[in-house]
């Protein structure tokens, strides 16, 4: 008996042992479910198991940073900066890093579709031949002046193509717009430069060479113009000179991310930035001696200090800093320009630069050089021009509207009723990659490739003193059934025949690109030379663009910019509320980030809030109103109201309410839709002298709702605000 038992035991043990071994060895029959596919034909520049790197250009904003994409077996894996690219020197911002999530995103428009009715989700997939035919029909069935193009600020090659097409066929000139250009007040800046220096262009600020930076609301570390290059220049200002660390003063009513890096953050009353700049100019001019320039003669620093709620000592101290500095620089930007007197502010601040004689010098202001294949500076449409455009749409002037790369339904203030005006347009064709709010209002969506699947180039407008045209090439084959808009237009133009076909006599987008770029082959100063156009284009893609080697600092044409009046008017504010409303662009979401989950989950640098919209409010104000953290309040302006949770932000003036722009989508994919609110709903159609939206020129009231909604914060409230270790 015992013998039998032991045999049973043996069997039992053996069975258990075998089963355990099977589990533990990780033999995983799962290997049987995996299939491996060899290359049909191995690309010759590929090596098995090795990553391939492609140079291209980032399309998350219009700055035009050069990227190097790591790809592996046909998939794009990682965004890295192009170290040779003069704009970003191998660096990227968070949005650039996340551009892969725009490429591999489940919510993309996968096929060309016809929408059942505007605004509805139900669509009918089409094939590309029909789609191209639709575009061709739209081009031929309407009079040229009934056709309009609305385009985003990127990419430039498509804009050039459409411009050529429009010019040749007599269509309306394409108009470009973007939320960033609206909140950057680009038009204001370039017009101020023109009026002061006598030459239009985008001023560039050489922070890296300066030792004292006085910024008036410029959020150059966040989204302003070219954040990567300005961040690099900021670092150079701080530590570039081993002997002296640059000093940075920021005038802003709220401590933005940029202001948080300032040595001195001087909160002033919104709308008084121009006055403060003029007062500083007067104090500096007086300290320097000599005759007082006309530009600064009209202000009284003491009055300005009172109006701006800043002590006169502070102003004198800043003036002293400027006077004793070697290369001081003053930077206007952000909310300072988004006032009813934005252009005056810009002029006053630029005049300050003229006063310290840094225009065109290292560490000073210069006009950004034009791109190599560009003859004049084209700024994107200001909000005023957009309003005119919308009015024309509403009046039925346009029968066909092509939209590419921009989402005006979301970005433009509700008071400029883009969505409503679309009803005046018979046919709306969108080339959106993503089903955004505007694509939802279009009759057809013919999806363009995502930026990483596209050819193209982007002109670098500002941020470097070199002339740069940044090249883009597809790093992966298109993931979905999309087609390059340039290809669609070229094909449609061929179908349409006549002038259209004559203007675009190209086989495809690449040929068009060659025609635009290979003209640079002859330039002697270029970053590379090539004996023939084919080699040139190969280099162009390989290096990620073309740029000239030497610096081109365009300095002012006007010899004496200070001999003029700058009216130091205070800004007007619209609305009956008691709080200044200050929208700012979320650094991580900006125009195009909201559909990318990684960007949604990036904490805001100053508040560390993720995934949602918050309302910044000074704790004092909140105490008066009986509001606590995470209470939902209603912000009401003359033109709209939004509800969001409150963040008690200690570094904001008590009379200012701030809100980030970037959330509040009603479409644009599962990660963006229904999340947060859009502060541009609160903005009225108020413009500054240059036609830019006076986005910071609104006053609002705050109403409690009694609701509470927890904000997702990276920080712990307890350690940061409540039980703080000393």
């Amino acid at each position, binding site marked *: 008996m015992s013998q039998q038992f032991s045999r049973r035991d043996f069997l039992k043990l053996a069975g258990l042992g075998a089963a355990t071994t099977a589990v533990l060895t990780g033999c995983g029959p799962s290997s049987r479910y995996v299939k491996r596919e060899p290359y049909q034909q191995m690309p010759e520049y590929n090596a098995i198991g090795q990553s391939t790197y492609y140079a291209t250009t980032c399309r998350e904003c219009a700055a035009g940073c050069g990227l190097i994409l790591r790809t592996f077996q046909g998939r794009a894996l990682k965004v890295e900066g192009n170290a040779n690219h003069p704009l970003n020197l191998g660096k990227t911002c968070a949005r650039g890093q996340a551009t892969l999530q725009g490429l591999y995103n489940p919510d993309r428009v996968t096929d060309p579709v016809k929408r059942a009715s505007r605004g509805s989700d139900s669509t009918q997939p089409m094939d590309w031949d029909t789609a191209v035919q639709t575009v061709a029909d739209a081009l031929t069935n309407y009079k040229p002046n009934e056709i309009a193009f609305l385009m985003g600020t990127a990419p430039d090659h498509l804009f050039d193509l459409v411009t050529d097409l429009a010019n040749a066929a007599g269509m309306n000139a394409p108009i470009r717009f973007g939320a960033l250009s609206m909140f950057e007040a680009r038009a204001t800046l370039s017009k101020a430069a023109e009026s002061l220096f006598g030459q239009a262009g985008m001023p560039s600020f050489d922070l890296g060479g300066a030792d004292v930076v006085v910024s008036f609301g410029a959020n150059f570390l966040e989204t302003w113009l070219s954040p990567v290059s300005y961040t690099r220049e900021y670092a150079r200002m701080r530590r570039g000179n081993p002997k002296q660390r640059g000093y940075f003063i920021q005038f802003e009513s709220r401590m933005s991310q940029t202001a948080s890096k300032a040595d001195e953050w001087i909160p002033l009353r919104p709308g008084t930035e121009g006055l403060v700049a003029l007062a500083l100019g007067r104090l500096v001019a007086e300290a320097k001696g000599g005759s007082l320039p006309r530009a600064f003669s009209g202000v009284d620093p003491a009055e300005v200090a009172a109006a701006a709620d800043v002590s006169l000592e502070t102003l004198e101290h800043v003036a002293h800093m400027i006077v004793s500095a070697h290369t001081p620089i003053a930077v206007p930007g952000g909310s300072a320009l988004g006032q009813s007197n934005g252009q005056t502010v810009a002029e006053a601040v630029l005049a300050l630069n003229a006063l310290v004689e840094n225009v065109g010098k290292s560490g000073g202001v210069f006009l950004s050089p034009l791109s190599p294949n560009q003859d004049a500076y084209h700024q994107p449409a200001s909000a005023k021009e957009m309003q005119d455009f919308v009015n024309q749409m509403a009046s039925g002037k346009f029968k066909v509207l092509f939209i590419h790369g921009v989402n005006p339904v979301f970005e433009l203030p509700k008071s400029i009723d883009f969505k409503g005006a679309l009803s005046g347009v018979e046919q709306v064709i969108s080339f959106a990659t993503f089903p955004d709010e505007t694509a939802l209002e279009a009759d057809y969506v013919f999806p363009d490739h995502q930026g990483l699947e596209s050819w193209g180039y982007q002109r670098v407008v500002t941020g470097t003193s070199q002339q740069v045209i940044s090249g883009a090439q597809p790093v992966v084959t298109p993931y979905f059934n999309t087609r390059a808009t340039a290809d669609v237009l070229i094909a449609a133009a061929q179908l349409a025949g006549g002038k259209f076909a004559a203007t675009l006599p190209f086989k495809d987008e690449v040929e068009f690109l060659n025609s635009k770029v290979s003209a640079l082959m002859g330039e002697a100063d270029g970053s590379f030379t090539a004996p023939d156009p084919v080699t040139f284009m190969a280099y162009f893609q390989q290096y990620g663009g073309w740029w000239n080697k030497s610096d081109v600092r365009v300095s002012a044409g006007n010899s004496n910019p200070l001999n003029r009046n700058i009216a130091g008017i205070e800004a007007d504010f619209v609305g009956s509320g008691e709080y200044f409303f200050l929208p700012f662009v979320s650094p991580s979401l900006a125009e195009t980030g909201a559909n990318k989950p990684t960007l949604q989950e990036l904490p805001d640098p100053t508040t560390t809030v993720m995934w949602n919209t918050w309302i910044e409010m000074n704790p004092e104000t909140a105490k008066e109103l009986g509001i606590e953290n995470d209470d939902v309040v209603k912000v009401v302006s003359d033109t709209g109201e939004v509800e969001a949770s409150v963040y008690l932000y200690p570094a904001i003036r008590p009379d200012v309410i701030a809100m980030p722009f970037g959330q509040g989508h009603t479409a644009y994919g599962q990660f963006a839709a229904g999340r947060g609110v859009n502060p541009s709903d609160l903005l009225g159609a108020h413009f500054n002298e240059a036609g830019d939206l006076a986005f910071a020129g609104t006053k609002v009231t705050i109403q409690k709702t009694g609701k509470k909604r927890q904000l997702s914060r990276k920080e712990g*409230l*307890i*350690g940061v605000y409540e039980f703080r270790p000393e």
Partner: protein
Amino acid sequence: MTSLAKPLARPHAEEHEDPREHLMHDPLPRGKMNEMVMEAMHETNWKFWVVTGILAVLVATCLGYAWYYLIDKGLGVAGVNMPVFWGIFLVDVVFWIGISHAGTFISAILRVLKVESRRPFTRAAELMTTFGLVQAAISVFMHMGRVWLSYWMAPIPNERMIWPDFHSPLMWDFMAISTYLLCSTMYLFLPLIPDMAMARDRSTGWRKTLYKILGLGFRGTEGEWKNLTTAMNLFAFAIIPVMFSVHTIVSWDFAMASRPGWSSTVFGPYFVIGALHSGMAAVAIVLFLLRSTMKHYKYFIRPEHFDTIGMLMLLVSMAWAYFYFNDYIVPWYGGDVWDKLFQEWAEKGPLWYLWYTMLFCNIVVPWSILWNKKWRRTPWLLASAGILINVGMWLERYIIIPEGLTINRMPFTWRLYIPGVEIALTVGMFALFLLLYMLASRVIPLIPVWEVQEGQEAHLLRKIGKAEIPTLSELE
């Protein structure tokens, strides 16, 4: 302790009391007593099954399903987060190990010190040890992110050259708990043998088979008794250091970590005392429950036993208070900023009431009730105090673990802990404990009948003669 050890050594001081109040002085025939115990084990009314059913459902849902859900979805369904990586699971571990302490303490220490009044309730306490440890082990496993790999903590020889890390306090914990579980189960089993033999002779059917196996063929010969007594004495002495070490090691999980509020040298004895504090209280509760639900147990469990436990509770409570304030004052005086912040946070943070409740339950309640002999001898009052003390001790662990983890050296990360599925699992564990206890009450005699009889006989002997005849246990 010596005064406790001889409650009957000075009977004349309490002459006004009815001597029959003491179990040892109120003997019944052996056969009758055996019958009483067997009857209590056999006779089960519908209320018992209703309660068992409810508990079983609770265990199946709150423990079984909830745990499945936890494993399937990951620990995200629990409330743990960054920085509170350890939540209620670990609170439960420490709590149940604490509960399990009293069983051994009462049984082994009182056996070693020959305290007569221990006799009827050692079994109940020892059973608590074993079942408490089962709960503790379950809690540890529930806490793990990948419980299906928990066998990696065991030193299994393998060809990968990987061992568990014996530097890790968790490893010591693992070892200590398994040792303690093994020892305490054996220590539970040894005194059970004569009772199993007794039950074997008085039952039929499957019970007979069961008791036959468990009784190990014990027949009560002189040699068997001798061996059994030797074994029990050996175990009683040996298990005491094991018991102390286990909870000391549990405290090292915390004391060895470099966290503010945890890295304290007093944690070893402090945790042992804390364990006894909650364990004593739990014994009081269990005795009250047994006495009020089991047939005939009012005979075995009497106010005098509650009196003994009540005195122990008071003593332990005072010791606990001493250690607690020792642990409190040293960092307060020492001046480490993080330690101080933790104290401030516990007292003034959003969970301040937990801190005050803990002090109330652990100090005010025992000190205000247990000094009075009459109150001590009131079973329900003692049981209520026991419940409060257990609440207090649970909160004490809650303050140490989740609240302590909130405060670390990176203030940016400080965040509150909101329990999730842990609550259900904790309820399920309590239900499992009760269920195990109730089922055990149907199969094993919860009164060590032979020990009671042994004591009574010794006292009978003593009463017959006029001369001072020493008690049996003093003879040993």
